[in-house]
Every structure is written in C-alpha cells, then in structure tokens.
C-alpha cells in the first residue's frame, strides 16, 4: 500500500516505466545468467524482463540511470574498467556483456564465460538504431523475442505519442546540457542518443556545433549566450553551488532563456544509454515541454 503510493508520488517519471520496472525486479528463474559491464546493455536487459546477475558500478546506478530500477539482488562487480574477477568467477555467469570501452578486459573475462561485445556508441552510427539492434540481439540471447517485440512497439508508440503531443505546440529549439562545474558544461548534439530522440520527437537542437562521437562537446557556459529563443534543459546531478554562482553572473541573468524562466532541470538520464534511457528522456522532455500528460495517474508533476 505504502509502496504503491510512493510509486505514484514518484514524480513525472512515475508512468509506464514503473510498471515495467515492477515486472523486472525479480532475478530470472530461467535463461542465461548474464553479467553486464555496461549500464546501457543492462537497462535493455531490464526492459526485456531478464535482469543480469551482476553489474559493474551497480551502487552508482541510482545516481545515473534511475529508471528502470536495478533489482536488489544484482551483484556489484566494481568499476567497469577494473572488474572484480574473483567475485565474478564465483557467480558463475553464462554470458558476459562488454562494449568497446571495456574491451581491454575481454581476454580475462573469456576465462570465466563466453563474452559478447555489443557497442552502441561507435564512430559513424546512429545510437538509437544501434540500441534497437542490440535489443534484438539481447532478446535472442535471452529467448525473449516476444518481450522485445512488445518493447520495441512500446518505444515506437511512446515516441509517436510524444511527437503528437509536441506537434501541436510551436516549440523553441532546445539546449541540452550537463553542467560539469560552475563554468563548464557538456552540451549534447550530433551523434548522441539525445539528438536521435530529438529527431524522432521533431524538436530542434539549438546547438549545431561539433561534437565527439559520444555526442557531446565540453564548452564554457558563455557559449550558451549566442542563441536567442531557446529553452535550456540541464540534467541532474548539478554541481554544488552551481545555481548560486550562475545566479550571481550578469551574463547568465541576461540570457533570454534565463530571463524568460525557460530553464528546466531534468532528473538524471543515462547519456550513454540505450532504448529505455531514450524513452525516459523522451517522456521527461515531452512532459517538461508540453506539461504532464493526461495519462499520468497522479497528475502532479514535480
């Protein structure tokens, strides 16, 4: 009873995602025991209803991914660049998932179980498309093709629904940033997951500069001043003292989007995520731009 209420009061994210999570909080009774070295692969597994048995940096999950929630029984393997092999070998996984980023450990991992590398963020690929491919692959490995079909449909439906809700509005372009400190931010643009989602939703990104192939550029905060009619979305976690420092800056106070109150802080969303993060971002952004959806059970956005 209490838990149900809490889920409802959980804010703008307490929508379909919660239901999916509730479905996925049990460790799999059947199918391969998977150890994952990447948050994006794990959130895909969670969406398929087949959680991993072990995950690197599991303790930081709630800081960076939040939704879908990581089930309680998932073992923490430590840093993804320094997997705790001794712990992993005792967990007897059937399959270990890696990406290019952690590939240096594959030789060692292969001594424990078969290794499969599924990289979403690569040079010259669309992360959203790669995330779809990866979802299909993982569905095959876990024998959950049905769940994958349903999930991909849900994704498309969510994108379409969000796009419809936004189509009626005349929307300004948006800046998507993660503040690094009080003077610098990562700004998200081409090649990134967020950009792919913006394209699906029909929202324009105000940042058209170069980015690396993870889809961001590190810039001084003053770079944001060049645009006129934009809305700014900043992802949590924010650096401490950020708002005090920015609030004291005449440059920041005179920015059109600051003057117009067009600054929105979004809850954390995994920037190197897969489809669940894409969907979470789409819903958070749409709710912020168009107001909370009518389907929202609690009706009160945070």
């Amino acid at each position: 009873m209490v838990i149900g209420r809490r889920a409802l009061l959980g804010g703008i994210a307490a929508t379909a995602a919660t239901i999916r999570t509730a479905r996925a909080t049990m460790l799999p009774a059947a199918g391969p025991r998977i150890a994952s070295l990447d948050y994006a692969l794990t959130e895909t597994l969670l969406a398929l209803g087949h959680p991993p048995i072990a995950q690197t940096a599991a303790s930081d999950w709630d800081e960076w991914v939040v939704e879908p929630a990581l089930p309680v029984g998932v073992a923490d393997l430590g840093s993804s660049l320094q997997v705790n092999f001794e712990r992993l070998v005792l967990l007897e996984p059937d399959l270990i998932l890696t990406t290019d980023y952690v590939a240096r450990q594959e030789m060692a991992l292969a001594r424990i179980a078969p290794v499969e590398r599924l990289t979403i963020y690569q040079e010259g690929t669309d992360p959203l498309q790669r995330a779809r491919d990866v979802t299909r692959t993982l569905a095959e490995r876990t024998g959950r093709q049905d769940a994958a079909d349903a999930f991909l449909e849900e994704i498309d439906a969510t994108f379409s629904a969000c796009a419809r809700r936004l189509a009626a509005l005349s929307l300004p372009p948006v800046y998507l940033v993660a503040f690094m400190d009080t003077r610098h931010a990562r700004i998200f643009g081409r090649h990134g997951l967020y950009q792919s989602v913006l394209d699906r939703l029909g929202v324009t990104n105000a940042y058209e500069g170069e980015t690396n192939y993870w889809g961001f550029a590190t810039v001084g905060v003053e770079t944001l001043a060049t645009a006129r009619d934009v809305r700014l979305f900043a992802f949590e976690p924010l650096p401490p003292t950020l708002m005090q420092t920015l609030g004291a800056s005449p440059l920041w106070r005179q920015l059109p989007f600051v003057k117009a109150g067009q600054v929105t802080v979004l809850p954390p969303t995994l920037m190197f995520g897969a489809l669940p993060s894409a969907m979470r971002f789409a819903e958070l952004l749409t709710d912020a731009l168009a107001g909370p959806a009518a389907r929202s059970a609690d009706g009160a956005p945070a």
Partner: protein
Amino acid sequence: MILSQSRTGPARFSAALALVAAVLTVAVVAGPIAQLWAGAPTGGYDPARILFLHAELPRLAMAVLCGAALSASGAILQQVLRNPLAAPTTLGIDAGARLALALATLFAPALFGFGRDLVAIAGSAASTLIVFMLVRRNFSAVSLILAGLVVSLYCGALSAILIMIKDRYLVSLFIWGAGSLAQQSWQPTIDLAMRLAVLVVPAWLLVRPLSLLELGDASVASLGLNVTRIRIGAIGLAVLLAGFVTSAVGVIGFIGLVAPILARLAGARQFCERLVWSSIIGALLLLATDCAVTLLSGVSAEFLPTGAVTAIFGSPLLLFLLPRLRASVRPPFEASVPQAVARFSPALRLALCVSLALSLVAVLFLGRDASGAWQILPPDAWAEILPWRAPRLIAAAAAGAMVAVAGFILQRLTGNEMASPEVLGVSAGAAFAFALSLFIFDDLGLLGESLVTSLGGLAVLVAIIFYARRTGFSPETILLAGIALNALLDAFVGVLAAGGDPRAFILVDWMGGSTQGLTMADAIPVAIAALVLVAASLPVLRWLAILPLGDRQAAALGVPLAYARPCLLVLAALLTAAATPIIGPLTFVGLMAPHVVRMLGIRRPLPTLLVAALAGAAIMAVADFLARTIAFPYQLPTGLVAALVGAPVLLILLGRRGSTS
C-alpha cells in the same frame, strides 16, 4: 651603459611580446567590437554585447592577472632559492592545491569563495613544505626540482585514484586541473584582483631584502636582517600568489617558470627589475596564449584548456634551458646518497628480510569472499581463485623487484637519493605510447600493449642517450630530461581528459597500473625478465659501489665512466620498460626500496641489491593485496595503491635520515 642595456632589453622584448598579444587580442575582440559599433540589433537581447562584456573581457583580464601573479611567484622563488628552475609548477605548489581542491570537491563540495582559497593555499603550503622536507639542506637546483616533481606526481596519482573511484563525478577535476580561463562574470576576476592587490604590499616590502640575498647570507645578516625569516616570508608570498590563481581558475602550468626565465634572458639583472618584467612578460604571455586558444577553439570541437596548453609548450622548454643552467650560478651538485647506518642487529635484519619474503606468500591467501567478508582462502576454493590471484601477485612482485633495482641503480648513478624510474622518463614514454595506441588501434590485446609500451619506453631511452651523450651522460641532464617528459605527459593527459573523451579514463586507468586479469602466461615472462635483468645487474655491482664516491675517485679506482654510465642507464631503462606495462608509470617503489635497504643497515653491494629487489617485490605484493581488498568490490589500480601506501613510508624514511646522518 650596462644599466641602460639591462633596462631596454626586457622593455624591447616586452614590447615585441605585447605586439603579438595585441594582434591576437584584436583578433579575438575585433568581431564583437565591430558589432557593438554597428549598434544593438532590434529585439533587445544582444548576445555579442553580453559575451563581450561578461565573458571575453573578464577572460582577458583574468589571463593578465593570472599570468602576472604566477610569474611574480616564479621570480620570487627563483630569487629566494637561487634556483633558475624554481616555479609554482616545478616545486609542486600547483599540484598540492590541485589535490587539496580535489579532496574538497569530494568531501566538502559546497566550498567556494574564501573557503576554496583556504583549501587551495593549505594544499600548496603542505606540498611545498613536503618538498623542502624531502631535500632538507641539499638545496641544489636539481634536487629541489626532483623533489618537486616527485611530490607533483604523487599528488597527481592521488587525484587520479579519486577520479577512478568516483569516475563520473569528478570529471570537473580534470577540467580544473587543466586550467580553463573561461569566464561568465567579472566576479572571479575582481575577487582575484583584490586578493592579489593585498599581496602587493608584502611583495614591495620584500624586494629590498630579497635583492640583498644576492650578496650572500652573511652580508644580509650583518645588515640586521633575519635571513630565515626573509626566506620563509618570500616563499609564503609565492605560495599565496600561486594558490589564489589555482583556486580561481585551476592549474596554469609553466607560465611561472617561463616568464622569469625570459625576463632574465632579455637582460633583467636586478631582482626588482626581474620581478616587474617577469610579471609583465607573464601577463602578456598568458594573454597571447589564451587568445590563441580562443581562436583555435573556434575552429575545432575539442575543448582546449589554457593551462594544459601552456604546459605543453612550457615543459619542453626545460630541455632547452639545460645548457644555460650549467653556466648559471648555483650551488654545487652534491652526491648525497647517505651511507647505511647499522641500526639493527644482524639477527633482526635477517628476521625483517624473512618477513618481507613471507609477506609475498601470505597475501596470496588473504582476501574477500564473494559476499565481501574477509577470509583466509580455504583449500577447496584454490582451484577457482588462485588462477586469478597468483599471476597478478607474481607479476606485481616481479615488476616491483625490477623498478626497485632500477631505482637503486639510478640513485647510485646520479648520486641523488630522489632519483627513481618514474623521473627517468622511460615510463612516461611508455605511457605516451599507450595513449597513442588507444587512438590509433581499436584493441591491441595485452601482448600488443606490452610491446607498444616497451617500444615507447625504449624510444625515450634512445632519445635520452643521444641527448645525454652531448653532456657526457651527466646525471642531472638525464633527470631533467625525464622531468620535462613527465610534465609533458601530464599536460597531454590533461587536455585529453578535460574534453571528456572516455578514452582518457582508459589511459588514467592504465597509468594506475592494474594487475587485474593477468594469466600465468603473462606473469611468467615478467618473472623471467626480472630474474634475467636482476642477474645482469650483478656484474656491475662494483661500479655501483664506487660511483657515489664521485667521478675522480671512480676513475682512479678503474671505473670506465664513459662506458659505465650508458651501460647502467640502459640497464635501468630496460628494468623500467619491462615493469611499466604491469604496474604503470607511477609507483614510487623504485624510489622507496633503496631507502628501505638503507634503513635496514645493509652496506655490502650484493645484499643491498638483493634486498632492494626483495623490498620492491614485497611492497608491490602488499599493494596488490590492498588494491584487491580495501575497496571491495571495487578493485583499485595496484601501482597507485603502491604509491599511496609507500609515499608516507618514504617520507618517514627520509625524515629519519636527518637524525642518522
């Protein structure tokens, strides 16, 4: 005549520099000014105007302030220490502030304003104090800079460990460590200006006493001035100048070294002139650099922090300045490897050695089980766990033995007890090679990596030999070349990491020295390399015993110096190159192990070498054990843990030296 020459020299030089800075500044501000001139566009909001007034102008002012303050700090340090290489960067002042602020970011994130300044200055003061404790009375140019470098590397290693554990949180530390001048308000500039303005008074008061130092301590004392108090005051002032800058914008490397040297080269003779012209030149230099960075970042997507750029251009200057250092006035280079003191009875000594050896085996069976509880490995788990634990232990211990012997050789060769493989530059070369391979190849595998990194180390070795041959393999040349290379590596990693490129994390991770996931097939070649190379050191033991006596005695005793030095250098480099792929470039074991031996009171060359190897192996074995258990389930990088654990031990060992020598 001389006077007028010395006045116009720096003036002319500054004018030329001012011209360059002016051209670059105009290139940066011409656009916005033209737009301002054309009048505000309709619609009220004028981004060009806002940017110009609140971002570009304060940034230019900030560059001028920081350049002047750091250069004044460098000029004061060079004067008070009579050391042409002294600067906030080379003495570890920057690094101390950087580490202190990293710790503050982690444990007291809400600090800002004066709180931040206090943290930065406390860190700078602490690292400076440690550097002076390390050198004690041996204030020779090289010793001091060497101690500064070791402290800098150590602070850098600690910051790296923090970033590795809390990776994503602390990306801002990378930006900050690389010194970005980006501004969004006049407030930080005004704050810094006020702090610096307060310091002008003590600086002005110190000019005369500091100038008098050139006459010698005795003549200053005869004028009724307290030399020690002047020194402490001046160093304190230099720390404050650098600390305020670091707190405001981060680490701006090497400006404080380069500007005073340029002022001196341009002909500023008296200290007062040097101080003033250094500040002017430093301000112009940083202004020009920052404008160039601004113009460059307009064309590329990469985030270029100004501080790292100054370090990339400034650090090779150390190499260029070496020949000039010879001619300059400096205290003689003293052979300062203290003799061993027999403090322990032979029985106790033997017991200590045996316990070192036993610790190698003991840590194999100590660890944590799957749930994280401490355990002594039960025999039924051996088959499962030992294939993971044994190879990393063997490889770490073998690598530890190799760097220990390398450190022993280098300390004997250079006659400097702060010499170690880290400062030889060979491991920095290995790290460069690894960084390049990260960007060129997708995935090399462990063997490929070892090959590439060894090649990198050897390439540096060849370069050092060619470079050092010109100076007859003078030990200080070799050390300074290594320092320059390490500083360059640090700047390079800074640029990479500040932009947020995830490959920078892989690089930092590798530099931490991970022994994870090694197999027996990886470990046994390392162990064989250790045995072969340590055995190869046996025939040169006699040289090592004689060299610290000085060149003349060594030659008289029949050591072929022209041949012995390159031989020993190659041996040390091979030992380092073989160990670096396993434990990374930053362990300090090579620095520590010989001191452990000395403390045990061992004198004869053969036992010294063997016990140094044993101590190195034991330190790395214990570090490997700690790396795998203390932050469970997180696995720390073994090399960094060795540095973390070993450095305080080293400080204690060096501290006791004073009472025994």
